[in-house]
């Protein structure tokens, strides 16, 4: 019962945080440097790990597909399989998970330590709402950066699949054929679909991590607990949201 109330409090607090942050949206142009800093943190510094991971995800997909499709002579459809699954599912999902792990944890840690060391209280007494300078720039940055990260993840994943399909001996699929089937079966709607998903995931991850970070109470020990909680809740929400988003976007 207590836990249920805690969960409901968390949801309510998060929604209130969202409403407050959005209400400060007109102040965003003034906060351009802060917004840029967050874009840099969320987008630019996350790019290497996103690229590495999506390359190998595309490669593994091609390898698995090649292994199972090669036996009934449908290996030219590796392209369509990798193309569709990267664009519709794995691209956005993987970027969101990396975002939760890399950016979400950092946000939760930073805001939790600001809260624990009373920096947030200091902001409040200075009549500077934390939602305005701590939450809003991050939400805006993730909205702008998420599609960029996702489209790069998609393309890197597709090329990873092509390289693996071409260079593995028992598949040895020509890149031309790979991309021909990829293009034939993957429509831009699929990519757009994935970008919408990524946008929702990214927004939710950042919002949740901000909310959990700002609601930390107690001493420095709680910072670690807040980070763990933020990442776990983010991952669960990504997977749950993924199901419902996929269903509604089908």
């Amino acid at each position, binding site marked *: 019962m207590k836990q249920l109330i805690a969960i409901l409090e968390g949801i309510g607090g998060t929604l209130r945080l969202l409403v407050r942050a959005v209400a400060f949206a007109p102040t965003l142009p003034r906060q351009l440097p802060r917004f840029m800093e967050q874009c840099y943190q969320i987008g630019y510094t996350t790019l290497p790990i996103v690229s590495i991971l999506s390359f190998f995800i595309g490669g593994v997909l091609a390898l698995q597909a090649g292994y199972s499709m090669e036996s009934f002579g449908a290996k030219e459809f590796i392209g369509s399989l990798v193309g569709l699954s990267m664009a519709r599912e794995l691209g956005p999902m993987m970027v969101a998970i990396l975002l939760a792990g890399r950016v979400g944890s950092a946000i939760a840690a930073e805001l939790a330590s600001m809260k624990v*060391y009373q920096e947030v*209280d200091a902001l*409040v*007494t*200075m009549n500077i709402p934390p939602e305005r300078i701590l939450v809003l720039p991050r939400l805006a940055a993730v909205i702008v950066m998420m599609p960029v990260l996702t489209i790069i993840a998609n393309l890197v994943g597709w090329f990873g699949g092509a390289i693996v399909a071409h260079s593995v001996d028992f598949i040895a699929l020509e890149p031309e054929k790979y991309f021909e089937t990829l293009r034939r079966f993957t429509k831009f709607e699929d990519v757009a679909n994935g970008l919408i998903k990524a946008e929702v995931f990214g927004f939710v991850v950042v919002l949740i991590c901000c909310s959990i970070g700002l609601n930390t109470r107690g001493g420095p020990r709680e910072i670690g607990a807040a980070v763990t909680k933020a990442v776990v809740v983010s991952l669960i929400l990504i997977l749950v949201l993924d199901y419902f988003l996929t269903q509604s976007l089908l």
Partner: protein
Amino acid sequence: METCHQTRNPFSDAESPAVGVTLEHVSKNFGSLMVLKDISLTVEPGEIFVLMGPSGSGKSVLLKHIVGLELPTSGKVTVAGHDASDPATRGKVRMALVFQAGALFNSLSVYDNLALYLREHRIATEAGIREKVMRALQILSLENTARKSPSDLSGGMRKRVAIARALVQEPQLMLYDEPTSELDPVMSATISEIIATLKDEYRVTSFVVSHDRSLALSIANRVGILMGGRLLTVAPPAELRDPQDPVIADFLNPHIDVKNPRFKQLES
């Protein structure tokens, strides 16, 4: 004391009304723990009020009620006639709180820590901000730390930066949480002088939470003593030099008796 009802801005010399603080039957519970028990208190505009008490007596919690960081379980706190629990009050009355640990923004340099308030509220141009910030740093002899990160400073320096940051806000009401803890005696004296100067020159109302007896007795207009969540007394410092109440006397002038230590008294 008519003059006390106008504060003068330490930077611009503009004048604005001095503010007072009123607590009416304020109680605060954290779960089943009662931290504040029915406290009624008035801080006059332009005075220095020092709240003393042992650790854990609820001094900091009471302070947070005045700036609206904590909301009373029952009772009411007003600042210059405005409800302190209403966030809008912070926009009407300029209040600055000096946190015990400083609460400096670790991601910003000392200079940016001081400039943040001015920038966010668009109080001055960048040149004006620079002038104000450097003046506040000068007052606390911190000119050389402007470009440093707060994490590179010692505890005492951080506290001075926190005071400088509060000064920059040109407050009508200054609240200090243990301003002299962690400071060497000379620096403590300096802080005491700053608080007194703010009151004398600029007629800023000050609410100081401290257990620094010398600070309290030297600069306070009135001293309140909080113990176990109850306000035991409010009196001018002169009355507290020789208190009648044995509990207060023991708190203010603890007698160190090696032959009969306190922890052994408690055992018996």
